[in-house]
């Protein structure tokens, strides 16, 4: 569902399907060796000292786009996938590459076995009330 993403980076239409098969962008990889499975709400931010990804010949345009999106503000994995209009699995691999290249880092959400701190939950309730 690219919708408003068209014209900017998509020169094909939805009907035709992607011109490049999604996992071609990851050179067929479905997992990234460096990375544990990234949660949908794990936050990706750029490394402060990271250089310009544009000049890196090992990176694909999608890598560069991820770094660009995260540079202004950290993004969740789900948002990156929606923004790039790529399957979650593909985005996970691409993020793994970028972590390996030390261009971005990932902040994991609260581990599943732990309940978020009660004070955080209270903040959530208060925040929702204040909306």
């Amino acid at each position: 569902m690219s919708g408003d993403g068209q014209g900017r980076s998509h020169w094909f239409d939805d009907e035709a399907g992607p011109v490049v098969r999604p996992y071609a962008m990851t050179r067929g990889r479905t997992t990234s060796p460096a990375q544990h499975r990234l949660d949908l709400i794990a936050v990706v931010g750029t490394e402060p000292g990271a250089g310009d990804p544009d000049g890196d010949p090992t990176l694909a345009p999608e890598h560069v786009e991820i770094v660009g999106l995260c540079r202004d503000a950290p993004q969740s994995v789900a948002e990156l996938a929606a923004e790039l209009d790529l399957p979650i699995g593909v985005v996970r691999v691409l993020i793994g590459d970028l972590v390996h290249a030390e261009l971005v880092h990932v902040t994991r959400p609260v581990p599943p076995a732990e309940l978020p701190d009660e004070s955080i939950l209270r903040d959530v309730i208060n925040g929702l009330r204040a909306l």
Partner: protein
Amino acid sequence: MIFGRSERGKPPVEPVTLKILVAGGFGVGKTTLVGAVSEIRPLRTEELLTEAGRPVDDTTGVEGKHTTTVAMDFGRITLREDLVLYLFGTPGQDRFWFMWDELSEGALGAVVLADTRRLEDCFAAVDYFERRAIPFLVGVNCFEGADRYPAEAIRQALDLDEDVPVLLCDARDRESAKEVLIGVVQHAMDYGADHRPAVAT
């Protein structure tokens, strides 16, 4: 920009992220509820399936098609600069249940939306969250023209435990959707106090 642009030179704040799932049968108003409170129009993420869908999908005539797309709609609520809540609508089709495992991992809690005209559609979701001890509440989406039932009657019909809250709501209404979410977080807090230690490690 997504989390609000930070001043140049200052590293952007990396927020604590939490997620709540919105489950329920097809057409019960999951995406509507997400849209009612989300600060962004619900976004869609997709996952490509390959072999998994094969035994079920009838691919006769489209033998070249070996992938299926599972779509998940989600929304975001920035509560504070450093605290962001995501709402994920679960995929409607039953055969994508395995995607729920991924979605529910680390979820704060869940809303099961129910429509009194098709109450059976949410049985599966109720069952799922009960089995995995994920705190959830049932939000009864009061559709126009549907009969209203007291919350107790719905609790009985769904055979819910006593501590599972049942709320009547209107998924289109922001205030109503907010109440539902507050109910989930409140329930998660109570549930956490009763069922598991606050810190497991």
